[in-house]
């Protein structure tokens, strides 16, 4: 009889990397569906192009670099999908393609591939696209909102916060919540994002800490500081939380395993600081929206947080006096 021999443990939690990534994809489905519902076919095309290019870029890189091809772990698919959801529906298809390729090739693979990138690939790509093609990525882009099928053309800026010049904030909280606003494909419908969040929590894919602390931090800081156009008030704070990419970023991007800290306390600090940076950018910066840069900045700080906010180790700090 031939028996296998190995060191313990002899069993594993059935949850694998692939399964986790699939869970993230599933959690993104309501958001993607809402985006396609509001923005129509262009949104669908962008999502498909960005997903396909991300997976293709990963495949090509791994082939050329003679690495084992790991597109099956679905991590490239997640990156592509998140990038697509970060684009305004009016963006041309090649924007999605360049963004995905940049995310996978430059941000992810050049730094060592899955697990070794120090920035969230989709977010870094979005930042690059914002800087390179502001016209396609920001407020000058128009799109026909399928929601207003009556024929009303609506401004699809990156975020409603861009209408800084408007004397009054144009959207009600309910509109913001349901997603009847301009914005990137994935960030508009908060209901869908919350559904995804619930799914991620129930499957144990992510913990509540980062999203809740980050949103809470945005709320509290806006309540204290206000925004460029609005005074500090409860209504403003709620509007701030529901505007732009705060919820989407909190649930799907700040929680990226690779680029967020690991211990609960470090995660809390990380999420809290993201919230603060968002509000500071929104209040004092020239950009209407700060989520991308806030998360990217804290991505960079993640190794520091992990290093300087370690957990207590059993039997170490509590030296007993004899």
């Amino acid at each position, binding site marked *: 009889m031939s028996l296998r021999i190995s060191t*313990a443990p002899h069993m594993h939690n059935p949850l694998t990397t692939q399964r986790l990534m699939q869970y993230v994809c599933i959690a993104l489905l309501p958001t993607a569906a809402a985006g396609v519902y509001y923005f129509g076919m262009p949104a669908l095309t962008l999502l498909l192009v960005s997903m396909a290019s991300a997976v293709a870029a990963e495949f090509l890189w791994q082939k050329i670099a003679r690495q084992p091809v790991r597109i099956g772990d679905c991590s490239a698919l997640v990156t592509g999908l998140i990038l697509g959801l970060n684009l305004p529906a009016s963006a041309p298809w090649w924007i999605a393609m360049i963004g995905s390729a940049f995310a996978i090739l430059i941000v992810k693979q050049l730094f060592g*591939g899955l*697990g070794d990138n120090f920035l969230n690939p989709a977010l870094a790509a979005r930042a690059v696209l914002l800087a390179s093609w502001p016209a396609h990525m920001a407020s000058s882009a128009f799109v026909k909102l399928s929601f207003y099928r009556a024929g009303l053309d609506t401004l699809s800026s990156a975020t409603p916060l861009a209408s800084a010049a408007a004397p009054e904030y144009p959207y009600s909280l309910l509109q913001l919540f349901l997603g009847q606003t301009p914005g990137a494909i994935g960030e508009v419908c908060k209901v869908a994002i919350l559904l995804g969040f619930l799914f991620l929590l129930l499957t144990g894919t992510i913990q509540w800490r980062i999203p809740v602390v980050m949103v809470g931090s945005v709320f509290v800081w806006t309540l204290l500081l206000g925004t460029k156009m609005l005074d500090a008030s409860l209504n403003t704070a709620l509007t701030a939380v529901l505007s732009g990419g705060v919820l989407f970023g909190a649930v799907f991007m700040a929680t990226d395993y690779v680029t967020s800290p690991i211990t609960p306390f470090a995660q809390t600090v990380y999420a809290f600081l993201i919230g603060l940076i968002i509000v500071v950018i929104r209040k004092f910066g020239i950009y209407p929206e700060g989520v991308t840069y806030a998360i990217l900045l804290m991505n960079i700080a993640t190794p520091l947080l992990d290093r300087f906010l370690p957990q207590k180790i059993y*039997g170490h700090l509590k030296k007993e006096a004899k």
Partner: protein
Amino acid sequence: MQTKTFRRGIHPLHHMHEGKGPTRDLKTREYVSDTVVISMAMNIGAPAKPCVKKGDHVDIGQVIGEAQGFMSVPVHASVSGEVVSVDSIPSLGAGNVQAVTIKNDFSDTWVELHPLGNVEKVDPKAVIPAIQAAGITGMGGASFPTHVKLTFQAGKTCDTIIVNGAECETHLTADFRLMLEHSTRIVDGLRAVMRALNVKKGVIGIEDNKPEAIEAMQKAAQGREGVSIQPLKTKYPQGGEKQLIEAITGRQVPSGGLPIDAHVVVLNVGTCAAIADAVIDGKPLISRICTVTGAVRKPANLLLRIGTITEDVIGECGGYSETPGKIVFGGMMTGICAPNDQMPIFKSTNGIVVLGDKESRSKDESPCIHCGRCVAACPIGLNPYQIKVAADKSDFATAEKLHVMDCILCGSCAYQCPSRRWLTPSFKFCKDHITAEAKAKAAAAKERASAGLSNASDSKDKGSKEKQSADHASNKEGGANK
């Protein structure tokens, strides 16, 4: 009563009653095979030396292996009959060990026993020698000689004896059955040790997935001086020595130290029952309860003689239910793989879990995605993912800086890892390497010190060997013993 626990940890097979379902409600039954192979190396420390030869007749309880020094225990015949051979067999770890094979004549004649009687009246000074003579080692898995555990260095004090009835390992129900069927014996053993060490407090910790055991033990502890039952949360590794101490006393064992540094001694329930047998009846440790489960037709809790061969045990359980891929001695989280089914059971074999071919296939590692599940699992509070990076580069200095030596090898991180990284095996490798390196350094220093004294080389060799085994023991002792 309030349920206590430690920080972090995992819940393996939580939805399947921790894998204990198939054997949980099966009453222990005795099985005696016609041949036993009794290993001389059933304890951490020096193996015993065989003192019988081929053709000798032995009675049950007769010493067949003499202890070699303090860090060693005697080995006794577990059946009566004729010694068939004294030779070497593969050990459960690496290398070979001496073993005595006895053909059972089923006459069940015992050697003359020297019972000490009621544990409440016995001379406290007689308890530890009785334990030593009975060949008792930790029966939860770590096989540390019990009399060594109960003998402290000067200046160390003990105020609590903790009895480990957590049985947090998956699939195993041996301790559970013992607590149900021999509750009074466990309390007797605990009382004997409490009296021997003059300790006023004895706590029996039991996970709350065993309410029947908690009830049975509470009943048995009624009216017994200083003995109490502490329900514990069902969480792995609740039965790890350090975790148990943290849960029950709120204290921590200092890094690199032993439980006694937290003024605690931890004994397994099986060890306590064996102590009661040794003290009350004068019986040496010749049998134990062992859970046989997994890919066998009729899973069971068996009372087995030490040295019963796995093949016979599996046969008693109706044979394999599918082609076996792995035979694990112990539970699925910390058990050791048997190289074949001729392996005899040891004093510490609390379970034999057979894995089918598919379950036993090893998985490929994929890149770490920094999900933090290992950190959230680690009962010690280590960063397994960082240590693994160092281990992969054979950077032992960094691994040590990241406190790999505090790792108890419980396997929680490796169980949780979605990338199937070989965390625990790497850490075991690191720990072994660092220990060996430290030993080599110490040996080299010693050699330098004794340079010139060439005629002393013989005794020096012996000394370093003894030290080696003692080091090995204290290193292992820190590990999760359950």
